[in-house]
């Protein structure tokens, strides 16, 4: 009775790994989709458990790799190529889509049990009691990570450890990769422009500020003092700006107000730029709440805009002064 069941395996091929890398690097993410519907792993029978996932390549592959060597049905929901947690937040990994796929696969005829095992992070989009009412299937929330699934399936009980979302250094750097790569072309362009306007130090400042915000910030996240992302970013930006400001005091040598203005432009422009990019990292984390992010946006974005604006105006004055005879 496997009318609409596609076969799959638990083996991750080289082509899959290349796909994973491209997805992590943010290259045409929307192309990393899996065809939605029912898949059979190994030799599933009418008693075999049904595990549900999203149609994002990384989600589907993490699941089938974890189930390698076992028999399972995998029901893939159409989340438009988005991972389970983000899709659940948007409602596309949701009750309606789950009911639709259960019916489309005629699951009630494929298996003779009535259990669906969902990833825990699908819960923001799925109402278990409603699925039961509409399909007769009982939703069981499995662990957060697919890798814990074999242990979960032995007892059908998740330990508190399996239920908790973490954000380890490896997790942070993996999700940061796309944020590190994306701004590089723009950063290079701005650095070249600043090199011709103001010399090597302003160009270096742009490179250091960008890398500090996109690579160093995620790495140091738990160790930066304060709780808010904006203030953590201001602090990191200040640490980057200070040596630049000190270097700018003496090089190239100039008289009067110019060295001070040069130092001030780094102290004004770099910290808010790093803080802004740091605030954007909230979208990549596993723990920020909307109320918290909203509070930060209202509290700190105006400060960032004014400081950065003042820094840019000061930089233009400094560059102009250097250009028209400020060179002593």
């Amino acid at each position: 009775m496997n009318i609409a069941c596609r076969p799959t395996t638990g083996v991750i091929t080289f082509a899959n790994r290349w796909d994973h890398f491209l997805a992590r690097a943010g290259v045409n993410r929307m192309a990393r989709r899996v065809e939605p519907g029912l898949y059979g792993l190994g030799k599933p029978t009418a008693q075999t458990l049904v595990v549900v996932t999203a149609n994002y390549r990384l989600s589907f592959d993490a699941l089938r790799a974890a189930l390698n060597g076992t028999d399972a049905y995998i029901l893939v929901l159409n989340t438009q190529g988005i991972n389970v947690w983000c899709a659940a937040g948007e409602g596309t990994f949701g009750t309606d889509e789950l009911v639709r796929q259960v019916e489309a696969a005629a699951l009630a005829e494929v298996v003779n049990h009535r259990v669906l095992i969902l990833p825990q992070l699908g819960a923001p989009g799925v109402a278990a009691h409603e699925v039961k009412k509409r399909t007769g299937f009982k939703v069981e929330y499995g662990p957060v990570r697919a890798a814990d699934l074999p242990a979960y399936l032995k007892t059908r009980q998740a330990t508190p450890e399996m239920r908790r979302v973490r954000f380890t250094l490896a997790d942070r750097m993996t999700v940061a990769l796309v944020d590190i790569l994306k701004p590089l072309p723009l950063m290079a362009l701005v650095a070249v422009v600043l090199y011709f306007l103001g010399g090597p130090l302003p160009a270096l400042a742009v490179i250091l500020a960008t890398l500090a915000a996109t690579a160093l910030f995620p790495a140091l996240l738990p160790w930066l003092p304060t709780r808010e992302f904006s203030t953590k970013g201001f602090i990191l930006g200040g640490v980057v700006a200070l040596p630049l400001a000190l270097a700018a005091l003496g090089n190239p040598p100039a008289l009067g107000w110019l060295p001070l203005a040069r130092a001030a432009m780094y102290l004004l422009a770099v910290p808010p730029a790093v803080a802004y990019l740091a605030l954007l990292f909230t979208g990549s984390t596993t723990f920020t709440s909307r109320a918290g992010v909203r509070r930060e946006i209202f509290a700190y974005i105006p400060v960032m805009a004014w400081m950065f604006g003042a820094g840019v105006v000061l930089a233009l004055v400094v560059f102009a002064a250097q250009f028209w005879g400020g060179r002593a």
Partner: protein
Amino acid sequence: MNRVSEINSLQYDAAQCIGCGLCVDVCPHGVFAMNGRLARLVRPAACMECGACQKNCPVGALWVDSGTGCASAMIRAALSGKKEAKPT
């Protein structure tokens, strides 16, 4: 319902709880624990407002203004005047 933390919108009405334990299962930050036959809040400040508990509470004992704590999505929504993505 009672606000349970200063820094998020989570609300819980213990009087309605039937002790099914689903909130404990779905919360990714260990906000809930079972205390006999009732859910109890053990880490209310860790709530990230994902909405999983509200969605899966069969009796409506939990409420949270759910959404994604993502600054770029919120700034984009503010600038374009469109609504932030929200589960329905």
